């Protein structure tokens, strides 16, 4: 039996029409199907194909004819329903993948009207407009984009606060919401630890150390690096504390940040003090000047923050160390900015002179004169402008690594190997291949692998590749720094 339907003045792009017709033709009980503009020539084709009935013959050249031939009325009715559904779903672009993906927020909401969360990843100049549009549609927002003007961030966060919504970011690289890893995040078990972090790799390191220590994460909320500035006043941090404080699953809250503005720190700590839940505050590079409330404890490193939750020390590297040489410099080449900061802090505490392109308090800039330990954040804008982030493309680290390997003053090279969603599928493999091209004697290499067994790259597999290549792998970035320190002492 033939069934046709006419859509008056209906335009759909060619690819979508073809795909829809194919998918209808493949339905059970359907012998053939076509979707064509109802021109006289096309009606002739449909008639010859046995797909045109009297109703379909009425179509005009500006109309779309949906035509099918079925074995029975039930199959015809089901196929026509499916055809209507395909034609009425939001339009796909001409070159879209087989799976329809919305190109606009509006289209996404048409497809998923119950959504309450939008992840914005567009060039920085346009991120604020998209984020504002999402907020006005009642969505919480994660802004992955960087280079969003500061004034726009302030305005967005104020608007979100007024609407009772959350703006994570800008430059929010990591989050885990309701067990779902977003952007660069790891597969960690669900649990009772909530994390609020201004830093992506800080959240990754702490959540992985906790996961590898047998506990889980309720939510990890990124705030963006400027949230604790005077101008923003920790709007997102405070909103995140409210959320986690009211979340029945969350039993312990960890706050990770660079040292905040003193007044903002006071405010945030006061809010934490009102909670009945224990807090661990990890401010890389500085301890709060205000007295900590009774339920808040301070952790100076990411590893200490994880230990506070686990209630025990994280294991340390127990293997052999390379023979000491005259080369005394540590050269750190980090993908993670917070991991670079943590390493600076630990080296500073050991009385070493440290320089970095991303210096924390007490560290000099790269132009500082004299012997120094050099720690580079390769995720810094200077390295990533026009190039992929080293977490996505590990080859970005190859040139600085080669430079470190030939430098006779370098006694140990420190690296982070970060795993997780959105990250290169085999960063350890790339690193080993890069080192295999090196035939000369090289300095010791100490690495930490940030990830879990459940990550796409599988932590143990990545660790094995590194250890097989003679790289020392420490269980945490903090411990890797301590090992590096031992190597040059």
């Amino acid at each position, binding site marked *: 039996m033939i069934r046709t339907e006419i859509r008056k003045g209906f335009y759909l792009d060619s690819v979508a029409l073809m795909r829809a017709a194919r998918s209808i033709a493949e339905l059970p009980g359907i012998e053939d199907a076509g979707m064509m503009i109802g021109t006289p020539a096309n009606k002739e084709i449909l008639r010859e194909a046995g797909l045109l009935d009297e109703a379909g013959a009425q179509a005009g050249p500006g109309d779309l004819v949906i035509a099918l031939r079925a074995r029975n009325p039930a199959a015809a009715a089901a196929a026509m329903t499916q055809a209507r559904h395909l034609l009425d779903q939001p339009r796909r672009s001409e070159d879209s993948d087989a799976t329809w993906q919305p190109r606009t927020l509006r289209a996404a909401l048409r497809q998923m009207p119950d959504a309450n969360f939008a992840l914005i990843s567009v*060039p920085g100049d346009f991120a604020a407009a998209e984020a504002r*549009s999402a907020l006005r549609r009642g969505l919480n927002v994660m802004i992955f984009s960087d280079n969003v003007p500061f004034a726009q961030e302030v305005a967005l966060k104020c608007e979100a606060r007024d609407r009772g919504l959350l703006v994570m970011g800008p430059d929010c690289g990591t989050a885990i919401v309701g067990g779902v890893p977003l952007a660069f995040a790891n597969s960690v078990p669900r649990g009772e630890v909530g994390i609020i972090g201004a830093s992506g790799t800080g959240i990754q390191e702490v959540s992985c150390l906790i996961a590898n220590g047998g506990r889980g994460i309720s939510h990890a909320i990124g705030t963006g690096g400027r949230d604790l500035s005077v101008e923003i006043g920790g709007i997102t941090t405070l909103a995140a504390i409210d959320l986690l404080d009211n979340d029945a699953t969350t039993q312990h809250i960890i706050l990770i940040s660079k040292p905040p503005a003193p007044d903002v720190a006071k405010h945030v700590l006061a809010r934490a003090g009102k909670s009945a839940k224990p807090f661990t505050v990890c401010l890389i590079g500085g301890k709060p000047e205000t007295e900590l409330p009774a339920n808040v404890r301070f952790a100076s490193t990411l590893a200490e923050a994880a230990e506070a939750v686990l209630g025990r020390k994280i294991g340390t590297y127990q293997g052999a160390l390379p023979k000491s040489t005259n080369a005394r410099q540590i050269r750190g080449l980090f993908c993670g900015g917070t991991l670079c900061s943590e390493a600076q802090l630990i080296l500073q505490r050991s009385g070493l002179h440290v320089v970095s392109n991303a210096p924390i308090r007490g560290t000099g800039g790269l132009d500082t004169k004299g012997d120094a330990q050099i720690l580079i954040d390769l995720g810094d804008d200077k390295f990533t402008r026009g190039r992929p982030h080293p977490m996505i493309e590990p080859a970005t680290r190859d040139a600085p690594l080669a430079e470190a390997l030939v430098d006779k003053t370098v006694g140990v090279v420190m690296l982070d190997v970060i795993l997780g969603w959105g990250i290169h599928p085999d960063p350890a493999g790339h690193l080993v291949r890069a080192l295999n091209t090196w035939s000369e004697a090289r300095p010791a290499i100490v690495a930490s692998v940030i990830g879990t067994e459940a990550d796409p790259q599988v932590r143990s597999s990545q660790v094995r590749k590194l250890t097989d290549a003679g790289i020392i792998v420490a269980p945490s970035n903090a411990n890797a720094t301590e090992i590096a320190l031992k190597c040059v002492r």
Partner: protein
Amino acid sequence: MRPVTSVSMWGAHAQRFCECHASARVVAVFARSFHVEAGADFVCIGDLSIGRGPLNAIVDSAGWAWVAGNLGAVGTEARIGNGMIECGRISLVTAAASSWLPPPWPRNPERETLTVRLDDLEHLACEKAPVEGIARLALSGAAGLPVSVLARVAGPRIARLRDWIGSQLIRPTCDPAPHDLVGLGPGLTPSGDDLLCGALVALYAIGEIALARELYAVIGEAARFATSPLSAACLKAAAEGQGSEPLHETIVALLANQSVARPLEAVARIGHTSGWDALAGAVLVLRTFAAMSGQVSKPVRPSAI
């Protein structure tokens, strides 16, 4: 706030559309473009991916993000005037848009080298052109193609067009142009129309403007009732020698004995079959042109008397 952005470049027909109409209606909304209709005229407004062409008005990527987020539904009224298109919640400034014009056609193309280039192109088309349209049928015949009603219907019609163009180029007659490809085939613009557009543009490329007009006199009349208004508007532009930029670039490359690899990639991205179908129409003309002896004198066309 009403988002405002600018049209950065537009084709001659898009520009004329805004000069001739004060109001219009959105008739189609896609992910990267939307179509506005007034009378029998169309303008396609979209991001850079729609490419340059006579009916296209291009908004840069940044501006398109605004447009896409605020565009109204099909049926939304558009107001045109004062260097602006106001459509739903969006305003598009057209005052500073630069005009797109097709590149000039090469002079005195070598027919021998053109034949070689066309051979290469047809070989490529056998591998790459989609089977759903009529490009492969037109370029290399039905061999190897799945048996389909479209192929059965379109084959003789393409042959009639080829014969007519051949006879008119070599020895003009009073035979009327065939018009039965109009409105034939799948797609937003039917494959038969795309092929005719390509043929019309190619006739301009080889200087056969009078023949292009003669062909359009017939198919333009047929298009009034035998195809969609959008497709009719594309045929009208082609009858003035204007098609999509990739089509022009491919024809130029063929006539200038240059590689067609790059423009061909862009042709392949036009719709699912439209780019290839238009190119097949152009090749149909160019093949006939290349096969003509260089010494053939140009008789006066009967229609020009």
